[in-house]
């Protein structure tokens, strides 16, 4: 119990604003067997990740976190948590990636609406089992009392924060893997040290939940400065977080030859003067992924600015256009020397 309290204290220090009920003591223990054993729990509550699911109050061993530059999903509010079994910790590898112990879980809840109007739509889980990571989507009921396994995904009509009425897609289990896979193996993509606040990493290290804060931590820009910050790092961070899980060697779109990872520094690989391969009508009549100085002749931006299947990028996880992300990428391409 003391451990739980300590975690909550750490959580509230980092995310105090996001946790309106941070003072509530979690009373639920996480069901480690549900994480580790074969098969899939039918309901989210079986895992015991939350002291209060509807309020998204984490249970013991469950720590909230936030990312510098988050993945955009139709403007959904995302509530992110890491669960580490008692007595285990994360380790930072040579590339600054966080490695999780078997038995860990990464939990992400998608919500729309603010304050009392907030509705939880789905919670996605990554469970670290002995044979690797398993990705599962859970869909919240209308009463907001429980989320049930949605292996085949689903759709729900809702209005985005931008005011657009959309058919929001909950991914199916395979689509989870479509983004979370590299060389055919499911991996976490969010919690990389470079995209996590140094303060949070430091707290985790201090209390033994992380071996060390790796070099390069907290190097991605803070997306909250997207409107005024320098375009290049913001755009590259945005493309890394939103696109590079597929667009990298070994990723789902490796055959395109486009590599949008933060660390990629070959101009052609990130799309500059790169011709399309299998873009089809996604090319929009343009010849290059990025034509420097010409955002309106750049395939990359054309596809970001579309919500139409067959054209839109990313292919899954969006039903509307991220105007803010698009504006940053536009600014970046415009600044490039022709």
């Amino acid at each position, binding site marked *: 119990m003391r451990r739980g309290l300590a975690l909550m204290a750490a959580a509230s220090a980092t995310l105090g604003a996001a946790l309106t009920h941070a003072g509530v003591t979690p009373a639920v223990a996480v069901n480690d067997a549900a994480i580790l054993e074969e098969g899939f729990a039918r309901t989210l509550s079986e895992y015991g990740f939350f002291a209060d699911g509807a309020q998204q109050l984490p249970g013991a061993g469950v720590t909230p976190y936030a990312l510098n530059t988050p993945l955009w999903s139709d403007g959904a509010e995302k509530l992110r948590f890491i669960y580490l079994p008692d007595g285990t910790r994360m380790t930072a590898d040579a590339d600054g990636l966080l490695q999780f112990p078997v038995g860990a879980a990464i939990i992400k809840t998608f919500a729309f609406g603010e304050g009392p109007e907030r509705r939880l739509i789905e919670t996605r889980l990554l469970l670290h089992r002995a044979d690797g990571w398993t990705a599962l989507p859970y869909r919240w009921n209308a009463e907001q009392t429980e989320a049930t396994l949605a*292996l*085949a*995904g*689903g*759709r729900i009509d809702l209005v985005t924060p931008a005011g657009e009425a959309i*058919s929001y*897609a909950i991914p*199916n*289990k*395979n*689509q989870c*893997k*479509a983004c979370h*896979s590299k060389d*055919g193996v499911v991996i976490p993509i969010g919690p990389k040290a470079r995209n996590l606040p140094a303060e949070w990493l430091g707290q985790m290290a201090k209390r033994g939940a992380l071996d060390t804060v790796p070099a390069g931590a907290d190097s991605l820009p803070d997306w909250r400065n997207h409107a005024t910050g320098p375009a290049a790092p913001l755009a590259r961070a945005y493309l890394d977080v939103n696109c590079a899980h597929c667009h990298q*060697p070994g990723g*789902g779109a*490796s*055959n395109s*030859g486009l590599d949008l990872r933060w660390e990629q520094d070959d101009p*052609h690989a990130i799309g500059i*003067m*790169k*011709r*399309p*391969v*299998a*873009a*089809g*009508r*996604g*090319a*929009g*009549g*343009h*010849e290059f992924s990025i034509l420097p100085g010409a955002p309106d002749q750049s*395939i990359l931006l054309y596809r970001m600015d579309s919500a*139409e*299947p*067959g054209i839109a990028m990313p*292919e*899954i996880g969006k*039903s509307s256009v991220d105007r803010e992300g698009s504006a940053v990428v536009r600014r970046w391409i415009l600044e490039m020397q022709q």
Partner: protein
Amino acid sequence: MKRLVMAAALLASAAPLAAEIHTIAPGEGAAERLQEALILAAPGDEVVLEAGRFVLTDGLSLDVDGVTVRGAGPALSILDFTAQAGAGEGLLVTSDNVTLRDFAVENPKGDGIKSKGADNIVYHRIRVTWTGGPKAENGAYGIYPVESTGVLVSHSEVSGASDAGIYVGQSSKITVRNSIATDNVAGIEIENSRDAIVTQNYVTRNTGGILVFDLPGLPVMGGGNVLITNNLVAGNNTPNFAPPGNIVAGVPRGTGIMVMANEQVWIEDNVVQDNPTAPFMVVAYTQEFDDARYNPFARAVVIANNVVDAGATDPDFPGGAMLLAAFGGTLPPIMWDGLQQDADTPALLTIPGNPGWSLNLSRQGQSLAEAQPGPLDVPAYGQPWAMDGIGAPAELEARLK
């Protein structure tokens, strides 16, 4: 002895004895039932699509090795994506040893069926159709295996693709046979791939019939060892409807069999008729590129005996009419850009006296406006290179027995 045979059979199939059959009927909740079956199937299982129309709003995906998806026939079991609202393709396969057979995909918003990193895949009696005919709004590829070793496409049919009907990319050990490609920009395209056989297909009413391309800047390059034989490539004269920007948007209407870059492509015993820009076209990569790993030239492309008409009577490129007049009303059947890596590495070889013409370009990437057209003068070919081991592995053919 009997036990031995059993054991051998088990080893050969690599599938558990208790393979399950999951039968999915169309109608209420079919999309969810089908996707769940594709997720929960175990290796060796079969997912059976009953006859009827499955109305789908999202892409389907399969990520379990050794699964067969079987319909009641390409005219009977139809995955209808006309109302698709998400995903980049109709069906995505990312697992190995999968067999897709006897069903159709209609009107996907992106590609039809994409299999990526899916080794030893069979497409048999698969139909992918954009029912509105050739339109730029149609998806890019119909049947789309990529980054795979072991691909067999047989008795399948694709029409309406705004890029290539049957497209195999960045793969090896490939057979595309006994299939029909009509009303696509490219009928059949083998791109950045090796060890491929394209045979006994009927390829008509596309912009270009059969294309063998190698492009720069991709993870897998160095296409070659391709055998194109016994195909009927006729009447490919549909105006190019590819969205601009794509490489096939540059394919002239009326192209029969076209090779760009690549090494060792053997073209023999095809019937090539009524392709009014060029029955055969052999060229280097046409664009600028910056990729030291890439060879832009055609090397050792052999045009052997084929049944071909007198040549091109309505070429789809600037200055075509003047050229026609200069050649007496018909351009001879083989068109070459005149570019080769060096004198010891001929781009094109054919039967001495086979009629053809050359653009006589002098450097890669040169504008067509600088062409100096003249008669074809290329070496004669010798013995075929060793072709054993090319094409889909025998195990894939055996699955269809």
